């Protein structure tokens, strides 16, 4: 279970104070699919980075299984990212000079279970419809295919938490549908999925919604009391 408890993050930019996250609290349980929605600069990505163990909040906690992940050592937090979190980046961040197969396999390698890679990659890429692209380099793929590879990489090794930052941004409806379906599948299989989007069309795909405006949660709708 992942929890944010009053997480606040303040940036100083050109002498201005920007409250990217202002006392954010939310809980994501296994099987939840939380959709975070808000305009640009509302703090959506900041929330994901804090939840992913890459950006410590200035105040408040980020808890995983009741432990504050920012009280852990950096190496323990690395392990958390490696073993418990799958991150889908808005800009894909695929490594350009290795093949699709190697990009996905990298995650298995980091987790130390390369022996599962062949089978796992075959299944993931089949689900995402990119099984015939394994020997290609990212630059040889369409934008939609690259995002599907990024999703496959995030889901490799079945992490408990999937954090997806605008995974459908810039995608055509068909590619977006494939990715949303895949994330919903993950939630159905007991993973905690958090997806950031600015697209109203996807507000209803999850089990909960967190609306952010200027770093604050302004409204929560969805399954139960999962965020405040």
């Amino acid at each position: 279970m992942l929890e944010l408890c009053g997480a606040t993050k303040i940036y100083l930019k050109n002498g201005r104070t920007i409250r990217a996250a202002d006392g954010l609290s939310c809980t994501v349980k296994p099987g939840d699919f939380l959709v975070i929605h808000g305009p640009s600069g509302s703090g959506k990505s900041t929330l994901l980075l804090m939840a992913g163990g890459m950006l410590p909040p200035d105040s408040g906690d980020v808890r995983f299984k009741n432990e504050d992940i920012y009280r852990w050592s950096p190496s323990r937090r690395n392990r958390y990212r490696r073993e418990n979190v799958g991150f889908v980046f808005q800009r894909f961040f695929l490594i350009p000079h290795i093949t699709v197969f190697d990009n996905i396999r990298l995650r298995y390698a980091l987790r130390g279970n390369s022996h599962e890679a062949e089978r796992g990659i075959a299944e993931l890429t089949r689900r995402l419809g990119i099984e015939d692209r394994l020997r290609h380099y990212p630059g040889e793929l369409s934008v939609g295919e690259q995002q599907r590879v990024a999703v496959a990489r995030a889901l490799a090794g079945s992490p408990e938490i999937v954090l997806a930052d605008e995974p459908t941004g810039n995608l055509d409806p068909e590619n977006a549908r494939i990715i949303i379906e895949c994330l919903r599948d993950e939630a159905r299989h007991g993973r905690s999925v958090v997806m950031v989007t600015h697209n109203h069309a996807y507000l209803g795909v999850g089990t909960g919604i967190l609306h952010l405006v200027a770093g604050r949660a302004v409204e929560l709708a969805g399954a139960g009391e999962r965020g405040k």
Partner: protein
Amino acid sequence: MRHKWGVTLLLFLAMTALVTLYVYLVNSAGFSNRSMELIMKNMGHNLIILPEAADPGDFYLCTDRQIPFPDDITARMAEREELASKYYASVLQTREKIGDAQVVLTGIAPVHRGDETAEKAHLVEDVPAGSARLGAEAARLLRAVPGGEITVRGKTFRVEKILPVLGEIDDCRVYIPLNECQELLGMPGKINAILAFLCLHGTTQEGMARYQKEIMSKQFPGYKVISKLRIAQGRSLARVTTSRYLYCLLVLVTCITVIVIAVTGLQEVAERRQETGILLAMGAGYPYIVGLYVFKMLGLAAAAALAGFLGGSWLAKAMLSPVLVVNTRAMGIVWEQFPGVLGLTVLVAVAATALPMLKLVRTDPNAVLTEE
């Protein structure tokens, strides 16, 4: 992490070129040094070993006050590998009147030590039985010619060779085999000096002379060592000059290698900044990422060490062998150098990657992944 082959190739070529230069310098300096050593060795023995009680002047002037001592001492010294001296020769000398000519009759016999190299050869060649080798002045006084005969104390010797003019007392010597000289002088088993050659092994002449004296005093009490300083110094200075020249060049080469690797490494770290950020975001720790760079560098260093070693050895052979005035051993690949070259290359590569790695571990994944 897969390599960017262009950068990898550039790095490999740079390291190979520098290792090649290093091996070339070490080899050419090594072989030049050996060549110089041989030249210096041809100047003759640089040590005289005499009984403690002997007056060196009596030996220099070849008086009848020289103190004879057993000739087996030379063989015993040759067995002691801890002594720094080699190329021993037992000498029994006396002033001798042959007809109207005054010469120095010298019985001489080389005594070999086990670790003397065949390539350099002993300073003294055996005088064949029944033969005499004459200094230039002695030959002139005796009117001797090669292949002719001379008679000493009633015994006839065939003139084997006449030596070139040296401008020393050796010009007046008549060399005959030691055992025949002992027999002629009625001094069986006796000599009155040992000539030897002090070898320097990476230390100063003074240090080595001190060491030699110390070992001699422990193992051969009652004998003293006199250094023929000019010959010893010449050899020592030749070696020091070569070493210092080489040292300066190697420092320069090492600095260039470090700079090339560090700059290339920094460039690569900068180029792979996003990749590093991705790996960190995926939970790879800094040791893992640093390991990728360092292992790659180690692999490259090992490959460059081998290629550079072969290239440098070939270059030294091709460029130096024809110009050496005095050749010693045949130049070629000295495989004994390879572990040292490999170790040094790896060490330099690891040291040079320190700066890029420092930059690498300062990479903030959050900053990388959120920058435009």
